């Protein structure tokens, strides 16, 4: 119980610091409190002055304290640029990002693990070379080029996340499975003529499972952070696009909430990896 309480306290603490850092970053970023509307030539001096007065805010500390007080009552504030409650914006956009991340992870893992298994089981250099080439190619293409290629080829942009996840999953799982496959008991099983599928399911995968689980955690975090540029580049109405807009509009309220969400996801994913790694270590010991 105390371990769980400590963990929750740690997560909450880091998320709160993340929010504060996000707020500080926006508050002191050039262009904070500036509105494009100021360049509207129809506005007279008084209106522009008023617009500026509206944008000026209190110190970061006070702003953040107010925000936290509201957060305790379930109020996430109102987005300045989109003029809508953040709760509503997140409710509208989060499912879209979850769908993209889920699709991306499914694709990335299906491709990556299949290629890794095929490479290890067949031990054919052609399969290895093909998959390695594909992974290397995807690692070498800038996300912006990939995004435009997807758009031009009419492929749903959600799959792009799959291609971001795939190289990491493939490379890591291939190494893990190869290591498991070279363990003495696996070699014995192979020598005894056990079916390939049985060796994979009973001997290779269980040994590599904890580390694969750790990789799953990392890949969730990876897909989630990659969703921001992908959604922004491909015009997907998820929280990634929202984060890009919030950054460009210096929308402090929206950016605090989004930073906290990303911090939370990163922390949970990394903790999951660490736990899985430790569990593996304990078992191995």
């Amino acid at each position: 119980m105390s371990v769980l309480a400590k963990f929750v306290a740690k997560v909450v603490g880091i998320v709160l610091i993340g929010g504060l850092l996000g707020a500080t970053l926006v508050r002191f970023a050039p262009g904070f409190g500036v509105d494009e509307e100021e360049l509207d030539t129809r506005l007279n001096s008084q209106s522009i002055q008023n617009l500026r007065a509206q944008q000026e805010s209190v110190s970061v500390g006070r702003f953040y304290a107010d925000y936290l007080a509201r957060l305790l009552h379930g109020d996430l504030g109102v987005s300045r640029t989109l003029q809508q409650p953040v709760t509503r914006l997140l409710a509208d956009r989060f499912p879209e990002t979850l769908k993209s991340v889920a699709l991306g992870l499914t694709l990335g893992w299906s491709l990556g693990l299949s290629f890794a298994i095929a490479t290890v089981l067949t031990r054919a250099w052609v399969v290895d070379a093909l998959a390695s080439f594909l992974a290397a190619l995807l690692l070498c293409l800038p996300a912006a080029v990939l995004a435009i290629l997807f758009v031009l080829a009419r492929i749903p942009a959600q799959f792009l996340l799959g291609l971001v996840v795939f190289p990491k999953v493939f490379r890591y799982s291939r190494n893990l499975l190869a290591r498991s496959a070279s363990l003495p008991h696996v070699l014995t099983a192979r020598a005894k003529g056990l079916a390939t599928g049985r060796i994979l399911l009973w001997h290779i995968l269980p040994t590599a499972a904890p580390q694969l689980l750790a990789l799953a955690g990392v890949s969730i975090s990876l897909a989630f952070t990659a969703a921001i540029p992908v959604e922004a580049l491909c015009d997907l109405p998820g929280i990634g696009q929202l984060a890009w807009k919030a950054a460009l509009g210096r929308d402090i309220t929206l950016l605090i909430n989004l930073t906290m969400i990303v911090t939370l996801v990163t922390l949970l994913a990394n903790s999951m990896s660490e736990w899985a790694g430790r569990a593996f270590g304990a078992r191995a010991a």
Partner: protein
Amino acid sequence: MKYIRALAIAVLLIVALSSLLADVLAPSSYARQYRDLPDASPSMQHPLGTDDLGRDRFSRVLHGTRVSLVLAPVAALLTCLLAGIVGGAGGFFGGWIERCVMAATDLLLSLPWLFLLLTVRALLPLNVSPLTSVAITFALLGCLGWAGAARIICADVHTIAESDFILTARSCGSHSFRLLWRHVLPNLKPILLAQFWISIPVFILTEANLGMLGLGISEPMPSWGSLLRELGSYSALSAQPVQFVPLVLFVIVVSSFHLVLSKEELPV
């Protein structure tokens, strides 16, 4: 695999050498606009044609490659230094320092780094030459990209610090600095080297992405980001084949960096 590594090294050497000799090999200045020849097809005068402002594409590719190949390693070195100091301290001293380092890297990884980059860049003075702007862009990348590497180094130093030979050295009365200098650092060298090597293509890619978003290096200095920008739009559908040369070269160079490291050396 050995042959592929050798091939990758050869490719990198050839590309690096030709980009270093850009001033000799380039048929004209990378900045000169031949305004009567915008978007020209390849010719004797312009082997890869010209871009939308009539600038010789071949010269721009050579100079752009030089910019990325010289500055990405500098940024990678900076990252490794920072990651080595932060991650090394966390892993070696352990306890609350390690927890703080891990929390700090978690935080840095969660912050919108693109926004961070945008912010820092906007704070800098405007009247800087293109070359300085290139150096600034890569220095920023180097300063902001250490968190991931620090996590890996922290974990590895932790393992080394708990190993038997360190315990023996400690029991023999070796003080912390000596332990670090004589025992930890030599064992960390391969990891640092791998991190350095793997960071180079990452920074080349990041600069390319920034360039494509219009946040890269100032005109008229070319970089891979600004060269690839030609393809980053609907126009790519009707692009001439020579317009894909920078992309092909980019992929070859970045994959060569990946191929130089063996499978086992690749950090994930």
